[in-house]
């Protein structure tokens, strides 16, 4: 038996912080990647596809989002596709999953905890009825008994305490579940691909939603030879967008130059989102060049999120010499430097640089 395990599609996510057309491209890509998954499912001749929760980012998504979801799902054809309700799209009144317009024949949305048989596999489906369920959403699953069938549990929630310090909800007791004779637990909620143990995996989201996610953009092809057999899990990348996080310490102006060169050389920059955290110290001129370089890079990337609070500008002796002025301007420069008012100093630097005569 082979199944394709995916989760956390988060359809309806706007990603507007990216802005403009890029955001629209990224939004559209979430649906296109579903089509990619469908193609993969057909190519790899899976018996079914399980989407382990959070198909939609929220229950209040609009009809447009629902329609696009239906259209993308249509590419699975007759292939059984189990759409499980997660915490984002829990089965509350007006839930998005219950409003799908003309869902394809193979799509099945369980409306409560239930056991269904698909391709000879006993699927133990644990949709979330509410956003936050106290206790184990999979706690209801019975023991194996005498049935000699592959048993696959599909659930959404925390197998681990992902949010430290937050009271745990939707907590799935994986060990207890496996003790009941479940061959594979397909989990959703954690956006990165993550192996809990041999029989329990998070597939992660198909397209990343934020920078802090670890290893997003994959689906899992799971082969189970028979009841009790250890599943074979293959991680298959499907995402189009690349979400990079870089944290760079710039010790001197040359570091900034080399970093800019490296980033400029990134592949598929139009699909790359970069969170760049800079620290260290640059000269005024170095900072000016960095700003110019980053402006150019930002124009070519899908998105650049810059955090440069840790980056300070220390006017070098050369900078200061170039700023050094006679008369009252000398006083201004000294005053700003003594106060560490780098912003004002940079503005003065720019003004002097723009001066009609070679004043600075």
């Amino acid at each position: 038996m082979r199944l394709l395990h995916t989760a956390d599609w988060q359809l309806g996510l706007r990603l507007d912080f990216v802005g403009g057309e890029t955001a629209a491209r990224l939004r559209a890509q979430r649906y296109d990647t579903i089509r990619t998954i469908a193609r993969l499912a057909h190519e790899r001749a899976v018996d079914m596809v399980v989407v382990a929760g959070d198909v939609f980012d929220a229950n209040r998504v609009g009809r447009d989002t629902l329609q696009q979801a239906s259209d993308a799902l249509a590419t699975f054809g007759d292939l059984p596709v189990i759409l499980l309700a997660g915490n984002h799209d829990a089965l509350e009144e007006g839930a998005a999953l219950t409003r799908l317009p003309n869902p394809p024949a193979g799509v099945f949305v369980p409306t409560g905890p239930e056991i269904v048989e698909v391709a000879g596999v006993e699927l133990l489906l644990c949709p979330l009825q509410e956003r936050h369920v106290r206790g184990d959403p999979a706690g209801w699953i019975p023991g194996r008994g005498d049935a000699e069938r592959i048993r696959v549990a599909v659930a959404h929630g925390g197998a681990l305490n992902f949010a430290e310090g937050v009271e745990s909800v939707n907590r799935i007791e994986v060990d207890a579940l496996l003790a009941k004779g479940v061959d594979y637990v397909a989990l959703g909620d954690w956006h990165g691909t993550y192996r809990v143990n041999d029989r329990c995996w998070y597939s992660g989201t198909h397209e990343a939603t934020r920078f802090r996610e670890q290893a997003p953009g994959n689906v899992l092809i799971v082969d189970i030879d028979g009841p009790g057999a250890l599943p074979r899990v293959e991680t298959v990348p499907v995402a189009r967008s690349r979400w990079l996080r870089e944290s760079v310490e710039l010790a001197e102006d040359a570091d900034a130059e080399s970093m800019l060169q490296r980033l400029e050389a990134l592949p598929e920059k139009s699909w790359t989102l970069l969170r760049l955290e800079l620290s260290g110290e640059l000269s005024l001129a170095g900072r000016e060049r960095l700003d110019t370089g980053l402006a150019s890079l930002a124009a070519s990337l899908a998105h650049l999120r810059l955090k440069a609070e840790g980056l300070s500008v220390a006017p070098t002796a050369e900078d200061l010499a170039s700023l050094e002025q006679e008369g009252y301007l000398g006083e201004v420069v000294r005053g700003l430097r003594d106060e560490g008012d780098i912003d004002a100093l940079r503005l003065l630097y720019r003004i002097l640089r723009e001066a009609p005569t070679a004043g600075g």
Partner: protein
Amino acid sequence: MWIRRLEVEHWRGLEHVLLDDLSPHLNLVTGPNESGKSRVAQALRFGLFESSRGAGRFKQDLQTWGGSERPRVRVDFELAGAAWQVEKTFVSQQHQTRLSTANRAFEGEEAEARLRELLGTEPGSTTSPASGAQLGRWSLLWVEQGRAGEEPEVADNSAIQGGLHDRLVREVGDVAAGALGQYVRRRAREEAERFYSQGLGAEKKRLKEARSHLEACSAEREDIERRIAAIEDDARTLRRTRMDESDLSERRAVAEAERGDARKRRDDTRELARQLEAVTDELTRAEAAVAERRKALGRAEALAEELGTNEQRREQLQAELDAAVREEAETSSALAELRENVVNAETALDELRTERLRLQRLAQARSQREELARLDARLEEAARQDTVLAELRTALNELPEVAEADVMALRKLEREQVEASARLEGASVRVRLQTQRELDLDGERIEAGVERTFLVDRDRSFDLDGVATVEIQPGSGALESLRDAVADRKADLRRRIEALGVKDLEHAERVRREREALVSREREARHRLRELFPDGREAARSWRDELAAALAELSQSEVPPDLDAALANIETDEGEQNARAKAARDRRDEISARAEALARRVADLRSELKGIDGEVAQLKRQLEGDGSVARVQEACDAAARTLADVVARRDDIAEVFKAAGGDTAELDLQRAEQAVAALVEQAGEKRDLRVALEQRMNDAGASSLHEALQDAASAGAAAELDLARLEREAGAARRLFERVEQAYGAAQAQLAEPVIRRIQPYLEQVLPGARAHLADDFALLGLQQGEAGSTERFDQLSGGTREQLALLVRIGLAEVLGEDEPWPLLLDDALVNTDPERIRQFQRVLFAASRRTQILFFTCHGPLFDATGADRVVPLEPRPRRH
């Protein structure tokens, strides 16, 4: 530079004026109005600064009206050690300027250019007078008539600013950054004003819009969140409503089943109630019959019991009557004996009372006798007092009646007489005669050596032994009236004494004292008499007579010797006997009352006995009529048995009725029906709510609230970033601008300081203790009086002070500008608003300043400046203006 000579011809009516031999120091050009001072000053200005080329209106006006000669001016000056002459003819066809020095001469435009170069001015228009900017430093140095009170315009004059700056930079060192400094200042202002209005007071549209955009984003986001929360709320309500509906449906089914049961029970109980009603009627009747029988039995039993009671009572009454009759007889006998005892006791008492009265009368006679003796003694004393009184009255009658007033009158008369005699004596002549030998005086022989004194109070003559007659006339005969007065007083006194019957005043006083003593004794005697008989002597006498008569009556009785003891004994005996008599009476009365009570009791008992006898007879008759108690009892038992049967039947039916719900069955049915109705109503409400919520949820499903929320959140985040970036840029621009302005201001203040330093000594002369305040562009801010005094703004100063201060600043600035090459200062009627006293003080300033700088001072008040100490004075004669 200084001007040596000035010659003007055909200049606005001035035919020819020559100022020669001018001093490099102080030159005073005086002259009344219309003497041409201002025209001369104008000619000098045109000679130095206006091109001779062109025939603009302002140049044509120089020509004398009606004249044809061209206005011409020639100025000789010395500059940097070289002597120069410039000569210009205006309103001419050709360029009529010639500039020459020792070995060179320039003509036309070259001369103008060279002159501008020498003087540091800019080329100007040929159609309008040279502007302040073109004149450069000269606009500061030349003060035209009526403009002395204006502030020197330094700020807009880059030549002055530059000159001052260069000059002062050399003096105070590195204070500003020249053109670059100005550029940075301008750019810093522009940068700041990209975000803030002038003066950095308010934020500009850019910042405001970013801020309001952020607020709008937040508001939109909150709105969407509210709408989502409302839908979530609806969803929860819908879910609850559906559960409620389901629950209500089950509860309704239960309620309807209960209503069916209640209805059946109600029908059953109605039938039972009817049966119960019938048997209850029957029961009522049976109970009435039993009650009737029991009543008859009760009556019979009561009669029998009453008869028994009455017979018993009768026997008791008879016994009581017998006992009362016996006691009555005994009481009557005792009463007779007691009555006799009372009579005996009262007789004994009467005897004792008679004896006591006798003894009391004897005791009374004894005390009357004692009283009679006391009365007699008092009457005797009274007789004695009467004698005394008679004697006193006789003595009084014998004495003359001299009262105190009489004595006072006598004293007065005597005093008057003595006073009259004294007056006479004072007016008389005392004649002392001492005989040397024996002689006759008025016939009286007087021996030798005898001295005689005569008081002569009337004309008198002494015959001295026939030898001489001495005539003495005291008072020249005027003593007559005094003598008469003495005689009158004496006669008055005598008459009064005689009238009183006394001998003299002394006698009268003695008589008066004796009379007073007698009257006093008489008063005492009368007082004693009143004490003896307060009620009068007659009352006492008649009382005595009464006593005497009473005693005469008693004198027969024998008075026992122990009368008081006998009287006491008899009173004791009488008291005891009286008590005994009272006790006998009380006992008699008590027994008498007892006897009466017994008599009434016997009569009552007899009457009651008679009544009881009647009742007994009556009861016996009734019992015989109603039948016996046993018969009545039997009928009563039969009725009770019937009643018990009916009760048993009734209880059976009631039990079944109760089991069926009894009286509550009807209420139960009502309750069940109402419960069903309430549930139906609730279900309807829930259904309506569900339908509405479903509709709302359906509608909400069509909106893309989640996406909109993300849009709003993203827009908010972007707006926040944008605002933060703008605020950071604005802050940097603002801080840079403020710091630039601050540093620039400080530098300018440093620059202004040398100018103030130069002005200060002059200011001390004119306005002691005052200090000028200059702005960073040398604009006059105002004047501070004293170190800590307040600063008055320039435009608030008086016209005279403004004028003086502005001139001082010009002098100071001229000195700064003329540090290398002094430039002449031309002042045309520059102190018109200044009073003479201040002008005298200002003269020192002019003189001191002219030691470094040439001053050409034009004034129409020549005499006021006599003491200036001018190096050259040029008086101008009045010249009538020809146009």
